[in-house]
């Protein structure tokens, strides 16, 4: 059995401690809130300390942090599927009670169980979900290629239409800010595509002039993107990063508890 320091320390922190916390929690309800926050502190502090402390027990190959990274890849897999439970709950409730729009829940659950079932079969049978040894695709891949990809692409393709109608019916230069926005938008749009070449296509004599102007417009767009846009984005990044850093510290130190469904006071 491999009892490297990293693994043993993590097991103590994230298995023994929670078990003790849960056991005590049955008797002392107050611990049901404080216990998780105590354990969360270690889970949050290890990646941060490891950035500044290269010691082997923490950041080395057999240390705590690399092993914790490996653990949390697995937990992320489970967490991604969490949402499915309440989708199934809502769906089955809607169908059972014939609530408005229940046929669509039937369609949703069918799509989920068929695709998910084929995925589970791929795992159990060892076929996997990509291609079979003889090169042909698994049924899961067939559904993914012919249902999942086109559906995802098309639903998002609707946005181009909404964009166009909003551009005509709603985008107004109603104040200075909106005016600058629309002017910058039009400049960038005309610099990112060969617009002038397109307009000059039916008039050959104009084409060299159009090409030159288009080149200049392209340079202007590059400048707008690199300097004014780059500066504003840099300012937004610094502000947002400080906000996220502050939220991270509050959460790790247990000041922020909302994510556990605990009110401020509890």
């Amino acid at each position, binding site marked *: 059995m491999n009892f490297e320091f990293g693994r043993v320390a993590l097991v103590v922190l994230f298995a023994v401690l929670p078990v003790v916390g849960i056991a005590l929690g049955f008797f002392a309800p107050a611990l049901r809130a404080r216990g998780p926050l105590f354990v969360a502190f270690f889970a949050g502090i290890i990646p941060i300390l490891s950035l500044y402390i290269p010691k082997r027990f923490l950041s080395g190959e057999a240390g705590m942090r690399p092993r914790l990274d490996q653990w949390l890849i697995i937990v992320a897999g489970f967490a991604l599927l969490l949402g499915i439970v309440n989708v199934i709950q809502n769906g089955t409730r809607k169908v059972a009670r014939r609530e408005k729009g229940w046929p669509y829940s039937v369609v949703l659950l069918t799509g989920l169980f*068929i695709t998910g079932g084929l995925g589970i079969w791929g795992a159990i049978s060892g076929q996997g979900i990509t291609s079979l040894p003889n090169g042909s695709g698994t049924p899961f891949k067939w559904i993914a290629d*012919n249902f999942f990809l086109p559906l995802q692409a098309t639903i998002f393709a609707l946005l181009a239409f909404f964009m166009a109608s909003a551009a005509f019916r709603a985008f107004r230069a109603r104040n200075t800010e909106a005016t600058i926005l629309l002017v910058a938008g039009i400049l960038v749009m005309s610099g990112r595509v060969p617009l002038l070449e397109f307009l000059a296509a039916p008039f050959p004599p104009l084409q060299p002039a159009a090409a030159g102007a288009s080149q200049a417009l392209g340079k202007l767009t590059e400048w707008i993107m690199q300097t004014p846009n780059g500066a504003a984005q840099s300012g937004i990044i610094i502000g947002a990063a400080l906000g996220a850093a502050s939220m991270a510290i509050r959460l790790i130190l247990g000041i922020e508890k909302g994510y556990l469904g605990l009110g401020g006071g509890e």
Partner: protein
Amino acid sequence: MTPHVDLGTWIAALLTLFALSFLYKDNPLFRFTESLFAGVSLGYYVGTTLNQTLMPNLINPLIHDFNQSWDLLVPGLLGVILYMRYLPKAGWVSRYALAIYVAYYIGLDFTRRLHGEVLPQLARAIVPLSHFDAHTIFYSLVFAAGVFSVLIYFFFSKEQDVVTRRVARVGIYFLMVSFGAAFGFTVMGRVALLIGRMNFLILNWIYPLFGIR
């Protein structure tokens, strides 16, 4: 060339048309497509996560190499108790798993916030303005003015006096140029999707259907 379109392309084409039907009116075909997409994408999550993460990183190591990966039992169990939140009485037990998951990822995210964002962007915003030529003005001066005026715009702890109000105005102008640029880029992004779908409909479905090319 006999018109030959395989079943898969037919399905993809019909689903594409059903989805586009929302443009005319919200109708059952669109709602069908939307629900099917919601179901299939969740099923896709199940298949992908199970085969690509849980099997190779958790289950196979535990089965084939238990001595080296015995400790993987812990993340496996933590993953399972995440789902106990749906149990009415013992829901609070799942808080331990959720706390470890959320705190670890926000801790890891913290390591990129100051180290990977604030400091490098600050280093970049420090530009020499020693000699006044076109490049310094249009690249260094405008850039530095943009970064710091935007920062002052998002400053809330002091009432805006005459100076800071004017600097904040400059900041909002920089923000508007960057929003305009973002709007211009978004047009290209959304339209690209539509081009992709129309390409599929025309070249992979209609053309073969009528035996063109």
